[in-house]
């Protein structure tokens, strides 16, 4: 029987400071076979940690086609994330996963797509956007990316925007204007009014609970169907295999049945979107 709590050492091959207090880590499993065999779906997450400190679930932001490494982005907000931030190139992190269901790729490939990311919510959406940049992606389908961030400095993956824009319309909105920003200012929901959005599309959204609070009524008003709106939820997690109960909502586990749920699945669970 496989030990579901075993983590595997991975070396930090590269670190970038992507935003204040937010670092991108390129990880490589020390066991080459494990690295070569590691595959995941866009929207899935891994659990990373340090002995004596603990573990955190983090979305994978590298492309699914990347076999040589796995990339994550960590903001130092808690005990574990701060400890990870202090690590240097060559240090070891312990990794297990991937876990969770991922975005519904089969359904997405056939339809127009509206991607909505708020803050760190861009992380699990990046592999999906990358996927939609693939040459063999159904480019007759429209892909619209909306990304909202607190300010210019907090924007993630800036070197990717050019590539994204070759394939899809990408719109960014910031909470506040600044000397380096001449683009849109306001709430992410404003973008839905300002830009023509694909009708009858699949919506994939990830952001803080406050974003969902305003976004969902707006999407429904615009005519998107409950079963076509997909949201990635964040919860406290320990086991990541649906046993420890910390991430439970209703009769579901966010770690195992999620983290991505259609609105239709969770609309009757007030605790899901509170």
């Amino acid at each position, binding site marked *: *029987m*496989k*030990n*579901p*709590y*075993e*983590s595997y*050492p991975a070396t930090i091959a590269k670190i970038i400071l992507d935003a204040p207090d937010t670092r991108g880590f390129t990880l490589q499993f020390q066991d080459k076979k494990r690295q070569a065999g590691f595959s995941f779906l866009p929207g899935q997450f891994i659990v990373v*940690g*340090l*002995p*004596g*400190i*603990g*573990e*955190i679930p983090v979305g994978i932001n590298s492309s699914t086609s990347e076999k040589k490494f796995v990339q994550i982005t960590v903001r130092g*907000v*808690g*005990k*574990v*994330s701060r400890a990870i931030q202090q690590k240097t190139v060559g240090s*070891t992190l*312990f990794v297990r996963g991937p876990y969770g269901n991922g975005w519904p790729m089969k359904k997405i490939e056939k339809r127009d797509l509206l991607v909505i990311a708020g803050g760190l919510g861009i992380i699990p959406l990046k592999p999906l956007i990358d996927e939609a940049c693939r040459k063999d992606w159904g480019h007759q389908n429209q892909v619209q990316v909306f990304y909202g961030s607190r300010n210019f400095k907090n924007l993630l993956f800036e070197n990717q925007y050019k590539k994204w824009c070759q394939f899809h319309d990408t719109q960014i909105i910031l909470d506040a204007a600044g000397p380096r920003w001449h683009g849109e200012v306001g709430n992410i929901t404003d973008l839905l009014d300002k830009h023509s959005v694909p009708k009858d599309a699949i919506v994939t959204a990830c952001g803080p*609970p406050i974003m969902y609070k305003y976004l969902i009524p707006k999407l429904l008003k615009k005519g998107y169907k409950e079963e076509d709106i997909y949201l990635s939820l*964040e*919860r*406290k997690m*320990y*086991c990541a*295999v649906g*046993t*420890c*109960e*910390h*991430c*439970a909502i*209703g*009769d579901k586990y966010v770690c195992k049945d999620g983290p991505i749920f259609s609105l239709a699945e969770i609309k*009757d669970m*007030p*605790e899901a979107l*509170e």
Partner: protein
Amino acid sequence: MAKFNSSKLVEYLLKNNVVFAPVERENELLFQEIHDPKEVSSSMRLPKNSFKPFLLPHDEVLFDFENPKKKKKISPQVIYGISIVDLKALILFDQMFAKDPHYQALRQNTLIVGQCIVPDDPKFLNVFEENILERLKFDVLIDRCRKGEPKIFTGSRLGQQTLEKFGFTNYEHVDFKGSVEGGKLDPKSQKLKEQMKKVINDKAFWEKFAKDCIMCGKCTVACPTCYCFDLVDEGGEIGKKQAGVRKRRLSSCFYDDFASIAGGENFLKTKAERLRNYYMHKFIRTPERQQILGCVGCLRCFQVCPVGIDIRKILEAASKVK
């Protein structure tokens, strides 16, 4: 041996096993390790604690960072005198931890000797269905509920072998026929689940029942079906090497850190939300996913509750909703 002698059986089991049994201590009946058959209580009450710590220790090493393939040494153990209600909880544990090698290692080294003991309020949840024994997993069961000589059942090959080696053959064998008939939740539990769904999103309902809750978590400690746990990583770097262990530590959904995350968000903020989550787990989530009720009707949660939150009153109120 024609006549069954439970004391002799315990003596026999003690030779090669660690034995846990109900013991009288300071006017309380407690499940704990025994070293002498005389320690075993003949009380027909339910022990205050359940079998839980013997199969899901409060603190258990799950992974060693330095030595990932390290296997723990496990000595054979006997849980002696476990009641029918706790045997029901054991079924749930077996299902929940079916793929957990740590639980399974302990479980497969455990001989279960059941005992027919009625809870203090036997009418609650009607735990005594017909043919209950074929829905439970045990190795040996001593039925002392009836008058006269106890009747002895076996529920596994291991149980038969144990009794035969011990020298008792006058037992009746019961084949395990699955925890629920047809693999489906029984109609009574199904009804209870549906009733619970009617009140689960009623904020006022949970605020009313959680009014006096002090979030001490005693109910979750006493409950034989509560298994929520944290993972705790201990140790750290020694020289350039990473060392340490990952442990499972039982936790309680009533505690503040149960659903809180870095950055300040807490997904179970109030006592009403926590009480609701406790009932959601036992009466909706578990039956939906495991096809059995997450409550065995032992009433331990009520008996240990310092403010007297009564599960019977909550279920009664839920079942009255139209």
